[in-house]
């Protein structure tokens, strides 16, 4: 219980800090006024818009207003579409969520199967193939892989649709690629952990007590190897977010990724701030869940707090 409370407070502090950082970053990246008004606008018109949007107030005040509004559920209004930010995000979030969820599931399945196989059959051809594929995914930027996939599966072979979000089939390529991209890091990590765990005394003792091999691997080896993969979760989530921006853009998947890309380009402060806030809350929640999962998994962590 105390462990949880501590984590919640840490989470809130982190969210605050993240929003301040992004606020400062986005405000120093350029003036939205230029992208909102045509080049022919007069100085007076610029001045008027600046005042209207409150961009001439001191930064601290602007931030204060943002926080105050956010706490009451108002994330401001988009400069470009004039719609409430919260509404814009809310309609796009489910798509991104669906994409991310399927990607994570694919990533976990791929990691567990191939990471374990590579560790058990280490230094054989199977291992080397798995490592090579993982290296390919790790080294290639996601847009490169995406374009390759689109060419091969979408255009040449015509097995999968390349854009939009109509059917489950539409989800296959974007989620699959995103999942594989994340899985590449997780798989090599699981493999190296498992190789170390398989050398340990308790695995030896388990086998020498007569435990069947499948139990030794699935119950004992896998569980012990998994904790550091889980510990990677924040990093994984960060990759998910950046990956989904690219993937959504390429596959025209109507999620938050595409929205954030467009808003940053157009300096649409309220939308960017709103997205960052929501995403950081989600990241904290995820990290929180992962910590809880880790504590459930490893009794040594539980007891030390």
């Amino acid at each position: 219980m105390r462990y949880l409370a501590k984590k919640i407070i840490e989470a809130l502090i982190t969210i605050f800090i993240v929003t301040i950082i992004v606020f400062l970053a986005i405000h120093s990246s350029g003036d939205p006024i230029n992208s909102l008004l045509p080049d022919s606008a007069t100085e007076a018109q610029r001045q008027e818009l600046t005042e209207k949007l409150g961009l001439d107030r001191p930064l601290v005040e602007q931030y204060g207003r943002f926080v105050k509004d956010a706490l009451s559920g108002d994330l401001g209004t988009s400069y470009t579409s004039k719609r409430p930010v919260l509404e814009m995000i809310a309609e796009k979030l489910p798509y991104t969520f669906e994409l991310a969820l399927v990607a994570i599931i694919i990533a976990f399945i791929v990691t567990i199967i191939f990471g374990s196989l590579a560790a058990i059959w280490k230094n054989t051809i199977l291992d080397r193939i798995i490592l090579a594929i993982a290296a390919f995914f790790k080294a290639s930027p996601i847009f490169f892989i995406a374009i390759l996939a689109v060419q091969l599966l979408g255009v040449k072979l015509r097995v999968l649709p390349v854009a939009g979000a109509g059917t489950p089939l539409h989800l296959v390529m974007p989620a699959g690629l995103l999942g594989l991209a994340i899985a590449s890091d997780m798989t090599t990590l699981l493999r190296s952990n498992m190789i170390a765990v398989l050398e340990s005394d308790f695995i030896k003792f388990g086998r020498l007590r007569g435990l069947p091999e499948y139990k030794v691997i699935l119950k004992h080896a896998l569980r012990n190897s998994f904790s550091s993969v889980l510990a990677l979760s924040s990093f994984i989530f960060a990759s998910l977010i950046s990956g989904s921006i690219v993937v959504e853009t390429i596959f025209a998947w109507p999620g938050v990724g595409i929205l954030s890309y467009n808003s940053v380009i157009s300096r649409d402060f309220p939308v960017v701030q709103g997205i960052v806030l929501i995403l950081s809350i989600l990241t904290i929640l995820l990290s929180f869940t992962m910590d809880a999962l880790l504590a459930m998994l490893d009794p040594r962590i539980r007891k030390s707090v």
Partner: protein
Amino acid sequence: MNILEVKNLVSQLNTEDGVLHIINDVSFAVKEDECFGIIGESGCGKTMTSMSILGYSDRIGLKAVSGEILFKGEDVLKFSKKRLREYNGKEAAIILQDPMQALDPLFTIKDQMIETIRRHQKVSKKEAEKIMIETAESLSVAKEKLNCYPHQLSGGMLQRIVGAMVLSCRPKLIIADEPTTALDVTIQLQYLKLLKRLQKEYHTALIFISHDIKVISMMCDRIAVMYAGEIVETGTRDDLFYHPKHPYTQALFKATNIDGNIRERYETIDGAPPNLKEEIAGCPFAERCQYATDACISGKPEVVKINDEHTVKCRRIADE
């Protein structure tokens, strides 16, 4: 009746640095219900021998070049994977050196014990629990400790739990590989006394491996001395203590300072054990032995029988 007979075992270990000739013609027999000791220092091959006896050699890159290991007449080296699964735990088991490492840190003791019991006996969960509690009690492990995780218990307690796990399956042969080395010295004796009592109660043969002569002398009826992958002397405890014949055995006893008295200088054995990368043509101890002759270096000595149980592998003794 011999429960185990190791006959002329020669094994090589594949390592990154090359092939090590780690077991060179090892032969010994262990009777039912007996406590048989193997003394040797690091690198002498005692742990590798125990892995071979348990059929674990393949997993560590150890290949038997020749010889047999007969457990109740069957050659362990030829066991199929299926046969091994029955053999491990139910017929032959091991107690490892470090109990903290021998158990999975993520599961409770209870979980791991019941897992072991149910693997070898067709019993319900409740019955398995009963067996677990009974065995644990016979090793003075309180019921409450069984719900703990390994990291919450002390080394001494964990080694008892490991003992309970092993004994719960009633194996006919238990190998204890340096079981007290990782324990505090005031805990060691308790454990040994317990182990000895249980060995008799459960009617198991015990192969006790150690580098500590004092410990082996307390536990074992018959002892083999191992050096550089060979057994240089075998005998009863009295044979070895009062009439050690092999120069290495004699030197080892002197260096151990058995009576515990404090002297001005320690007895030592100069030099170091041979490199096992090459096959040694003669006696492995020759380069450190004060009695070594050219014949010792060029050819292997034969085994000399001094009495019923006492044998030595030494040219000097053979010549006498």
